Every structure is written in structure tokens, then in C-alpha cells.
């Protein structure tokens, strides 16, 4: 298909005839714009709705005046033969602009830019316009979709006329990496990079690394002990020569761009000198103050005012909880100081700010559990023997507050019957719509542990069983064979209001058994709520701090959910583990390693090409009004007093373009998205009406394309 005919097009869209005259085949005249247009079928993805043959024919004729020398359609433009069409035409027809109408630029922009570059043309003279995601996939009316495709293509043609050759910006990659979050995903990522010989800063906000996994007793489906598999990793991370471990610390500020980030880390005062502390634990032993441990023991146990969260903590250095320490409250005590043989206690220690330079960042900040109090009818917080899954983990953990005895809230009585409720806060339109992925398996694990520890009768109340990973369904079979009772239905209520014989003193789970087709009241001694996972409360702040986006739920958004699950839209910032959504331990570990592999790839490249989207001030046009100076969120614009004009630091500019839009003199140019490009695209988009015919404009005279173009060139 070629629009390379000889007859002039009838009237065409109402645009000024370019000064350089009509295009002709052969060697391009000086300054002549010669555009090649390529319309992709994408199999039937586009061609099923958009008449791509017609679009290409139209472009070849109607846009001939606008410099279109050739317009083709092809089944798969991204395939090798498709790309060859472009490279061959650039060489044979002397094309100097390319427009591909296919999928989203976020998918294949680089593909076509690279093809353009292979033929010796500057890659930024190629435009990819989306007629798939924005057209064929979202519309059903074929005529309207075809008209829209023409408009989109016309916008791309007008825009590409104003594209200028650009050079990618080359930046060096700092080999050091920041890993935020010391759970299993973060530990895995840090170790992979450190083992490869590069430096890692591992920042953890709690006093020890380990994350949620350190609180668990057993891990499904193999039932190996969480501590046994986790602690060797923790120790490696703590002692690795390439890892700088910063616990009790938080990243407060991030500046820079891929390869060259600067992070400010707040190292909170521990009131203990880490270099002197041997981790002997005498201070905690001697501390007279008991505090309920809301974090590690989920409120079921006690810790001291000076403490390490758990026995295998890394580092072993304790922290003093200032709110509860008698010395900080009343000015006396200092028992810890008295008994510390290495004189490591420092009551006058201050918070410290550390600044580090890194090339890449991995966010592995994890999740928090759904607050079961929000579902009042399940009675958590009101009925003593309703537990959350995290509380149950601590109960069943031999290092936990009950030394692994599964007992009721009185601390003595073993339950005879236990009900485990799935999907608490998940798959519930009142709370979270999503499936938390791990609750089915954790509930099965609880059922097994209850049987093993107490021999009690266990009911699992489920909506659907989701046991999809390796060996998971076998575990489900095993738990069924062990005699756990499964009731398919979402419980309506947990109550202590017994009214039938056998219900006194029990918790009654009111549930519709959807398989039996009837309401049931099941009396139990203990209820475990298998609560879902949700983003951390500060997820959105975190996303803003690191310049990534998150969904309305608060989960971090991947660059591509399938093909690039550990990258983000921000170059140099990667995500691993539950920060992007609920995951089990194997997936979190895999993501930690995957993110590390991505970072190692960057480090090995030593240099990277960045999009040359930057703003710059045209000093001659700048009046020195300084309006732009306060606009820039990155303080990249400064006023040059001597010259009386503003100037932009290209290294600090992130290319948002706010200053370009704000400059009253039009003195700031933004590469890649210049005024001329956008205005031209608007003109192009509005050449075609909703029905595909030229858009009937107002009584205004024809638009003034060329003066704009000329003014720019001047």
C-alpha cells in the first residue's frame, strides 16, 4: 500500500502549503520534510476495529501536502520485516521523519526509535502514536474509530514536523545501591548485590532487620521454621563487608536521577554506642521497666524499655524506648548504664542525618496487616478470644510469649474448637477488593498447627480456596486429610450471645454454609481472623518521596505488571516484595533477587542513556522576571544576577515543563514537548472531524501554521 501517487489530492485539509513545495521522490531538497507513515494492523488488535488500509491510503493522499511521502500498512510493524520497511524507506526514499501508528509509546517507542537510528536518522525524528490502547481497544464503532485513527495520525504528522534531532543524555552509574526495607525481599536484594561485589546501604526503620517473616513460626507449605531459614540471611546481611546496615533509620529525602541519587537518612538515636555494644543483653535483663510489645509480639508479650526486638535480632545492639524509659521520664534509674560492662549506653545521643550517594534504589518496604477492628461484627478487640493471624503466629511460635502453647487470652486454657475465618478485609467491597494471596495458605497452616499443638477441632470458613503455587494444593489435601473441617461461606458474625444448648461460654460463628445451603451456628473456643495485607499507612508519602506512583489502594505500580514487575516508571527506582501487592515469601524473595539483577545490569553498563527531555532558557528572550524560579520543584532554575536572566541547571532539571508553560515571554524551550510540537499536534488532531471528514471549523480564518513554524526557526 502506498500513497505515492502522482495526482494531487483534492483540497485536503485546510492547511497552508509548505513553502518548500510538494514532496517528490528522490534526494530531499534542502530543508524539505519527508515523512514516512506506517500503520500497524497488530494482527486483528487494531485492524479488527480500525480500517488500517483506509487510514494509510488517506494519509498518503490527504497528508501529502504535509510532507507525507509514503504511507504503508503492515501486519506487525514491530516485527523485523515491519522495522525493515522503515529502515529501507529511510534509505531509499530519503525520509527524514517517521510516524508509526501502532500501540502505546510506553511499549514500542524504543523499538521504532532504534529502527530509525539504524538507518542513520536521529531517533527523535520518529513519533509513535497510539491507535491501539487509545482507539481500537476502547472503541467499538468502526467508522468512528477509523476517523479517530486518522486524527491521531494527523496529529503525529504535524508534531513530527516540529521534532528536532536530539542526543540522549549519557549519565554515569554510581555502583552503590540503596535498599529500603529489611524484610526478606530487601535482605535478598541486598545480599545479591553485595555478593556480586558492589556496595549496598540497607536501611530499616525498626531496630532489627527481618521484617514480618521474623515474627512467623512456620512457613507454608513446607512448614520449615521461619527463623531457621531467615536468620542465616539476616546474619549474612549484618556481617557482609559490602553491606552498610542502617537500622532504626529512615530515608527522609531523595534527590537526583538514575545513576546519581543522593539520599538523606535519619538515623534515630538508639542511646547506645553501636561501636562499643557487644550485644550481651545484660542491659535488657537489668532494666526494671516492662512495656507491652505492640510491634514484634503483636501486643501479646512484654519487652523492656531497653530492648532488642527478638533474640536473633541483627544487629544485636539494643535501643532505648525513650517514651517508656524511667530515666527519660523521671531523670533517675540508669540501671542499664550501671550494668553495661562496655560502657556503651549514651543517654545524650542525638538523631543523626547521613547523606549517601547511590546509583539505584530498591524499595522493599512491605505491607501492614488489615486492622480487624474495622469489621465490628467479628468482634476483634471486643471479644477476648478473637485473635488476628499475626497474634496466632506469635502464640504458635516457640520463641513467642507463650513459648508456643496455643491458648486462649487467659494464657492457660487450650481451645477445644477453633474457627479460622478467611478473607478478613480482603475480597470485600467494603474494605479491600483484592485477594491478599497468602491468607488461604496461612489459614491452612494455622489449621495444621492447631491440630498438631492441641488436637482441637478446627473449622476453616472460606469463600474460595486459592492454593495456586507449587506444592500448595498438596498442602491443602494434607490438611483436609488431617481432619480439618471446611465450611464454604463468609461468616456474618462472631458473637458470644449463646442461645442454644452447648453455646454458653463459647464464641458462635454465624455462617451460611453455601455448599449445604443452610445457615449454621458453630460454637468455638477461639476464632482466628486471617487478616489481609494492605499497603503501609505511609505508602503514598513514600511513593512521592521516591518519585514513583501507586494505585488508589496504595500499592506501588510496576513499570509493566507482567514484563517488568520490579521496575517502576522512574528510572533507577525498583520495587520488590509486598510493596507492590500481597505476595508470599517465595515470590518476595524472587522479586528481591530480580530487582537486584536489574540493578546489577545497570551497574555493569557503567553508563546509561537518558531521555533528553529538558528545559532551557533562551537568554535573549528572557526578561529576568524570575517567575520561573519559584515554579521549579527541583530548584533547577536560578537567576544570574550579572546577566540579568534566569538559567536552568540541566542536571537538576527533570523535564516536567512547568516553567516552559509559565514563562510569559516564551523564553523557555522544552525539548521533546516544545510549544511548537504541542500546538502543531493540536492542529493535526483537529483536522479530522468525528465522522472522518475535515473538521468544520469556526468562521475564524485558517490556522496560522507556518508563521509559528517560521517564528520558531528564526
Amino acid at each position: 500500500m502506498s500513497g505515492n501517487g502522482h495526482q494531487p489530492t483534492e483540497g485536503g485539509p485546510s492547511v497552508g502549503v509548505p513553502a518548500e513545495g510538494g514532496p517528490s521522490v528522490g534526494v530531499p531538497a534542502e530543508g524539505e520534510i519527508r515523512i514516512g507513515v506506517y500503520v500497524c494492523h497488530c494482527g486483528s488488535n487494531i485492524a479488527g476495529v480500525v480500517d488500517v488500509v483506509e487510514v494509510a491510503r488517506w494519509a498518503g493522499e490527504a497528508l501529502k501536502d504535509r510532507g507525507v511521502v509514503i504511507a504503508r500498512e503492515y501486519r506487525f510493524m514491530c516485527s523485523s520485516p515491519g522495522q525493515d520497511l522503515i529502515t529501507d524507506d529511510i534509505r531509499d526514499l530519503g525520509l527524514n521523519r517517521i510516524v508509526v501508528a501502532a500501540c502505546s509509546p510506553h511499549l514500542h517507542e524504543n523499538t521504532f526509535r532504534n529502527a530509525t537510528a539504524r538507518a542513520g536518522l536521529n531517533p527523535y525524528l520518529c513519533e509513535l502514536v497510539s491507535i491501539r490502547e487509545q482507539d481500537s481497544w476502547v472503541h467499538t464503532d468502526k467508522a468512528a474509530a477509523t476517523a479517530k485513527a486518522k486524527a491521531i495520525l494527523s496529529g503525529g504528522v504535524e508534531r513530527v514536523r516540529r521534532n528536532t534531532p536530539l542526543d540522549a543524555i549519557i549519565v554515569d552509574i554510581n555502583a552503590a545501591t540503596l535498599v529500603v526495607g529489611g524484610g526478606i525481599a530487601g535482605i535478598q536484594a541486598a545480599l545479591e548485590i553485595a555478593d556480586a561485589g558492589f556496595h549496598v546501604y540497607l536501611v530499616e526503620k525498626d531496630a532489627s532487620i527481618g521484617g514480618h517473616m521474623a515474627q512467623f513460626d512456620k512457613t507454608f507449605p513446607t512448614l520449615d521454621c521461619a527463623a531457621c531459614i531467615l536468620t542465616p540471611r539476616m546474619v549474612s546481611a549484618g556481617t557482609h563487608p559490602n553491606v552498610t546496615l542502617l537500622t532504626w533509620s529512615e530515608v527522609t529525602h531523595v534527590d537526583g536521577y538514575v545513576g546519581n541519587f543522593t539520599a538523606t537518612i535519619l538515623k534515630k538515636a538508639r542511646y547506645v554506642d553501636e561501636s562499643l555494644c557487644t550485644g550481651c543483653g545484660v542491659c535488657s535483663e537489668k532494666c526494671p521497666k516492662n512495656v507491652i510489645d505492640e510491634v514484634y509480639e503483636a501486643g501479646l508479650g512484654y519487652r523492656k524499655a531497653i530492648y532488642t526486638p527478638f533474640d536473633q535480632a541483627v544487629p544485636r545492639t539494643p535501643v532505648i524506648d525513650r517514651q517508656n524509659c524511667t530515666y527519660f521520664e523521671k531523670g533517675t534509674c540508669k540501671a542499664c548504664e550501671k550494668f553495661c560492662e562496655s560502657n556503651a549506653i549514651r543517654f545524650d545521643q542525638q538523631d543523626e542525618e547521613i547523606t549517601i550517594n547511590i546509583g539505584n534504589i530498591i524499595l522493599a518496604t512491605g505491607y501492614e496487616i488489615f486492622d480487624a477492628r474495622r469489621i465490628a461484627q467479628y468482634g476483634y478487640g471486643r471479644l477476648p478470644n478473637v485473635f488476628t493471624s499475626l497474634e496466632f503466629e506469635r502464640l504458635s511460635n516457640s520463641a513467642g510469649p507463650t513459648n508456643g502453647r496455643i491458648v486462649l487470652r487467659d494464657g492457660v486454657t487450650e481451645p477445644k474448637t477453633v474457627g479460622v475465618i478467611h478473607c478478613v478485609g480482603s475480597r470485600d467491597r467494603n474494605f479491600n477488593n483484592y485477594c491478599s494471596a497468602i491468607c488461604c495458605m496461612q489459614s491452612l497452616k494455622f489449621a495444621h498447627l492447631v491440630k498438631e499443638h492441641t488436637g482441637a477441632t478446627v473449622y476453616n470458613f472460606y469463600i474460595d480456596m486459592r492454593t495456586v503455587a507449587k506444592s500448595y494444593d498438596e498442602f491443602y489435601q494434607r490438611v483436609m486429610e488431617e481432619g480439618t473441617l471446611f465450611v464454604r461461606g463468609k461468616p456474618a458474625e462472631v458473637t458470644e450471645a449463646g442461645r442454644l444448648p452447648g453455646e454458653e461460654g463459647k464464641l458462635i460463628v454465624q455462617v451460611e454454609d453455601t455448599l449445604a445451603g443452610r445457615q449454621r451456628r458453630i460454637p468455638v473456643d477461639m476464632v482466628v481472623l486471617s487478616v489481609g495485607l494492605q499497603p503501609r499507612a505511609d505508602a503514598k508519602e513514600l511513593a512521592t518521596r521516591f518519585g514513583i506512583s501507586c494505585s488508589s489502594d496504595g500499592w506501588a505500580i510496576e513499570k509493566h505488571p507482567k514484563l517488568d514487575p520490579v521496575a517502576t516508571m522512574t528510572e533507577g527506582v525498583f520495587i520488590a516484595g509486598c510493596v507492590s501487592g500481597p505476595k508470599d515469601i517465595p515470590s518476595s524473595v524472587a522479586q528481591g533477587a530480580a530487582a537486584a539483577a536489574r540493578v546489577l545490569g545497570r551497574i555493569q553498563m557503567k553508563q546509561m542513556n537518558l531521555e533528553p527531555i529538558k528545559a532551557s532558557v533562551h537568554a535573549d528572550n528572557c526578561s529576568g522576571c524570575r517567575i520561573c524560579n519559584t515554579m521549579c520543584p527541583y530548584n533547577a532554575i536560578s537567576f544570574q544576577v550579572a546577566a540579568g536572566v534566569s538559567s536552568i541547571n540541566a542536571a537538576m532539571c527533570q523535564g516536567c515543563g512547568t516553567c516552559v508553560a509559565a514563562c510569559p515571554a516564551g523564553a523557555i524551550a522544552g525539548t521533546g514537548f516544545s510549544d511548537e510540537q504541542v500546538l502543531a499536534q493540536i492542529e493535526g488532531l483537529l483536522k479530522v472531524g468525528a465522522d472522518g471528514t475535515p473538521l468544520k471549523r469556526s468562521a475564524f480564518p485558517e490556522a496560522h501554521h507556518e508563521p509559528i513554524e517560521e517564528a520558531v526557526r528564526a
Partner: protein
Amino acid sequence: MSTQAPVAPAPAEGTAPATTFEPVIIGFTCNWCSYRAADLAGTARTKYPPNVRLIRLMCSGRLDPTFVLKAFSEGADAVMVSGCHPGECHYIEQNYKALRRFQLLRRTIESLGIEPQRLQLVWASAAEGVRLAGEIARVTEEVRALGPLGWPVGNLVDIDDVDLDAAWQATGGDAGGPPPAPGGVNPDHAAETAQ
């Protein structure tokens, strides 16, 4: 809406009572949230009316008010500005600047005789393909109800017939800056020369 304004929309005389009016809407999206939302709507095959044509900017803060006016003057029936939700801007806070410009622009177009509802602001995060599609459908229906943008017909001066330089001299040169002279003369100085 002001009736004394000379460019108050005239009833679209002569045009046959349209069976269905299909508005043409220009949508400005940011690279990080709303354009991704549009991509997501596509990937998920979420349907919306084909009346909107999207332009990708790096940030909604890049929205030069000229873009909006240009779209109206080129025949768009409405303009939709779209970016990340407040507080979620990829460039920290530039969407707030888009918000301010949006509010000023709404007043400006009203004084030009364009119904303010023809300029719409839609926040959509990268995960909100369905929301964006829904908003596009809503905007399309609102604009359809308004009818075509009623630019006045006839009696307009063709800008090409005006000697801008003469007009500039006549005003004494304080109504703005002249176009940059070839050779890049500072417009401030040029203004002085003109006087």
C-alpha cells in the same frame, strides 16, 4: 455569560438539527498517571466514546494556557485536562499549578463567550483506567448536551489582513511585546525602539 461580549456564541443557524452531535474533545494527559490510565483502559478493553483525542505531556504542569485556547480556536468542542491526583504528582506538585491554570482558564474562556463546562479537569492515577474511561464518557455527554462550540459566524477580521506592525505602533507598544526580531533582539529593547 456576558451578553455584551461581541463573540457571544450565536445560535448555530443554518446547520440542520443534528441527529446526534458528535463533539470533538482534546484531552491533555500527563506521561505518568493519566496517559498510563488511558493505556490501562486500553489493555483492559474498557470502552469509552471515541470523541476524545489525547495529547501526551510530561506533566499536567506543562499545560500552557495557549494549548487550551488553541484547541478551541482549531475547532475542539471541549478540552479535558488530566493529570495525577493532587499529592501524587510525579514532579512533586506541578499538578497544583495545572489546577490553578485550569481555574483561571475557566474564567478566561467564560469571558470569551465559551461555556466553562467546555474545559474539564480530571484526575486519574495510573491505575484508574476505568475511572478515566468513565470521566471521558461523562465529559462527552456533557459536551454533547451543550452542543457544538458556537463560535460566531461571519463579520470577523481575517488576521492576515491586519498590519500587525502598524497596529503595534499605534498602541504605543505597551500592549505586549512585538514578535522577536530576527537576530534575537531582546523584546524589551525592541519595545523601546518601537516607541
